[in-house]
C-alpha cells in the first residue's frame, strides 16, 4: 500500500514535469510577450491611402516604427524603424520588411564614405506573405546546389553559405525572436529562379495567430481624416 502510494506520488511528479515542458514548448501565449505589450502600449496613429493602411507607432522608449498593410489581404507590406545617430539629427528609416525606401536626397560628393556595393552584387529584401516569412536575394546567378541554408538556434539566425565561397549571409528573424520561438530547419524552403534565391520560412501557428489578432486590434485605431499633404500645388 505504502509502496503503491510512493509510485503514485512519483508518477504525479512526473506528470507535473511533463506539464511544465508542454507549457514551455507550447509557449507562453504571444499576448504575454514583451513585444505584444509594447505594441499595445505604443502611441499609434493610422493613415489610410486607397488600399494601404499605414500605422505609425511611437514606443515608450522613444523608438519609432511604421507599418504598412494591404487593407484587402491584411498582409504586412512594409515595416521600418527610425534609426537615430548618437549625435542627434533626424535619423534614417531602416526597413525590416518590404522594399527599401528609395533615398530621396541625391548623392552628394564627399558625403560619407565614397564606397558602395556595385549594382551587380546580391541584394537582400524581405517580403512576407500571409503564411510565410520570405527573403529574396537578387543577383545570385549560381545554381541551387551551391547554396546551403541552415537554421542556427545558438546565434538565432538562418545562415546561407555557398560552396564556391561567393556569398555568405546571416539572416536575423526578428519575428520569431520577439515571440521567443525556436528556429526550425523543417520550416525552411528555398527556390532559385531568374538569378534570385528565395528563402521561405513557414510562419509558426503562434505567429499566425498573433498577426490575425493584431490586425483586429489595429482596426480600433481610427484613421486620421484630413491627411496632411505637402503638395498643394495642383
Amino acid at each position, binding site marked *: 500500500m505504502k509502496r503503491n502510494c510512493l509510485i503514485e506520488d512519483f508518477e504525479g511528479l512526473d506528470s507535473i514535469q511533463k506539464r511544465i515542458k508542454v507549457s514551455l514548448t507550447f509557449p507562453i501565449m504571444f499576448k504575454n510577450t514583451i513585444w505584444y505589450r509594447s505594441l499595445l502600449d505604443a502611441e499609434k496613429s493610422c493613415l489610410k491611402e486607397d488600399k494601404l493602411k499605414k500605422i505609425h507607432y511611437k514606443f515608450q522608449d522613444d523608438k519609432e516604427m511604421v507599418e504598412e498593410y494591404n487593407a484587402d489581404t491584411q498582409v504586412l507590406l512594409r515595416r521600418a524603424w527610425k534609426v537615430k*545617430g*548618437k*549625435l*542627434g*539629427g*533626424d535619423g534614417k528609416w531602416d526597413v525590416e520588411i518590404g522594399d527599401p525606401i528609395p533615398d530621396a*536626397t541625391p548623392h*552628394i*560628393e*564627399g*558625403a*560619407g*564614405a*565614397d*564606397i*558602395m*556595393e*556595385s*549594382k*551587380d*552584387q546580391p541584394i537582400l529584401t524581405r517580403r512576407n506573405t500571409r503564411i510565410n516569412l520570405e527573403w529574396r536575394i537578387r543577383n545570385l546567378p549560381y545554381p541551387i546546389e551551391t547554396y546551403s541554408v541552415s537554421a542556427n538556434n545558438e546565434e538565432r539566425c538562418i545562415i546561407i*553559405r*555557398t560552396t564556391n*565561397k*561567393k*556569398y*555568405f*549571409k*546571416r539572416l536575423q528573424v526578428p519575428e520569431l525572436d520577439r515571440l521567443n520561438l525556436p528556429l526550425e530547419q523543417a520550416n525552411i524552403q528555398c527556390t532559385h529562379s531568374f538569378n534570385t534565391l528565395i528563402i521561405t520560412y513557414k510562419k509558426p501557428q503562434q505567429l499566425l495567430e498573433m498577426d490575425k489578432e493584431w490586425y483586429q486590434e489595429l482596426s480600433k485605431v481610427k484613421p486620421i481624416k484630413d491627411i496632411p499633404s505637402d503638395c498643394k500645388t495642383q
Partner: protein
Amino acid sequence: MASIAAAQVQEVRSITRIERIGAHSHIRGLGLDDSLEPRAVSQGMVGQKMARKAAGVILQMIREGKIAGRAVLLAGQPGTGKTAIAMGLAQALGPDTPFTSMAGSEIFSLEMSKTEALTQAIRKSIGIRIKEESEIIEGEVVEVVVERAAGGGGARVGRLTLKTTDMETNYDMGAKMIDSLLKEKVQAGDVITIDKATGKINKLGRSFARARDYDATGQQARFVQCPEGELQKRKEVVHTVTLHEIDVINSRTHGFLALFSGDTGEIKSEIREQINSKVAEWREEGKAEMIPGVLFIDEAHMLDIECFSYLNRALESETAPVVIMATNRGITRIRGTNYRSPHGIPLDLLDRMIIVPTSPYSHQELREILNIRCEEEDCQMSSDALTVLTRVATETSLRYAIQLITTASLVAKRRKATEVSMEDVKKVYSLFLDEHRSEQFLKEYQDEFMFNDGSGDAPQLMEVSQ
C-alpha cells in the same frame, strides 16, 4: 599572378605622383627631437630655432590638453616662416587633434555675422571623441582597379573586390575613396577595414595566403588571417567629431548634408547650449572625451575690434581651443578704430597672449630652404645656380626666389638640360621682376601709364633723382 600584382602597383604609383605642390607642402612637422629641442634641418624646417622651440612647448601644452583658451601670437616679417611653423604644429599634433586654419579676412562674409564665423571656427577646433556603432567592411583585397574615363580629365572610377573566407563582393568607389586607397598604398593581398560612415581605411596587415610573395612585401609586413563570415559588420568605433559637426547635424532637418554643401548659415544659440549640456553629460558618464584643438588665424591684423573683443570673452570659456595667430604687421591701426597698437591687436588681448617672434633667415638657412623646395618641386639645380638663387633671396625676398625655382627649371627643360644652371636662373631673373624692380620700373615710366596727367609729385621726384 605576381606579375599582375606588380603591374597594378606600377599603375598605382604613377597615379600617386600627380599631387599638387603647395607653398608649404614640404613641411612635415616641427623638426624637434624627443626632448623638444629643434634640429637644425628636419621635417622640412630650417632655422628659426627659438620660435620652433617655443612651438614645441606649445605643442606639449596642447597634447596634455589641460589648458584651454590660451592664445599665441606668431609675429615676424613677411617670409620668416610663421605659417610654416603653424603648419608644422598641425602636422606634429597628428590627425586626431582638430586643427582649423583660417585667414583673418575669411570671417567677413555677407551670409554670416563676424562673431558667428568666429564661433564656428572655434567650435570646429574642439574635438569630441565618442564611441559609436558603425558599419564596417572588413576583408582581404582581391583586386583594386582604377580607371580614368575617356578623354583625360574625366572622373575616375574605381572598383574594389574584397573577400572573406566565406564570400566575395565588388564595390564601386568614388574619387575620394580612390585617393585614400592610393594614399594608404592598398594592394591585392592586404587585409583592410573601411568605416562606411567616414570612409576611413585601416590596414590590418597582409593575408597569410600571400606570405610567399616575397618581392611584394616590405620588411615590416604583418601577416593576419583572412577574416571570416560576412564582409559588412557592425562594430563599436571611436570617432572624433568636432563640436561644429554636432551643431550642424542637429541644427537642420536635412541634417548632415549641410556640412558638405557648405551652407550652414547661422546656428541658433539654443542648439549650441543644448549640445554643450549634452556633451557635458557624456563626459560625466565617461562616454565621451573632449580634445581641445588648435585654431590658427593667419593675418590676424585683418580682424577688427569687435572680433578682438569677442575673442577676449571666448578665450575665457572652458571649452576654448588654443588660438594661434600670425601677423606680419608692426605698430599699426587696429581695424575698425583710429587707435594704433603693436601688431594691430588691442593691448588687452595682447596681454593675454604669449608672443613668439620669428626673425629673418640667415644666408645659410635660405640656401637650405631653397634646396628643400628644389627637391619638393622635383627640380635638379646646380650648386652655383643655388648660390645665385640664395643671393636673390637675400637681396629681394625668399618668396620671389622660390617662384624662380620652377620657372628656371622650365627654362632648363626647354634647352633639354637635366640640371638648372646659373644661366637659367639669370634668365628668369630678367624675365620676371621682383617687387623692388617692379617699383623702380613704375617710377621710371609713370608718365606713360593710364590716368597720369603728369602733374603729380612723381615726375618732379624723378627730376630730382636725375
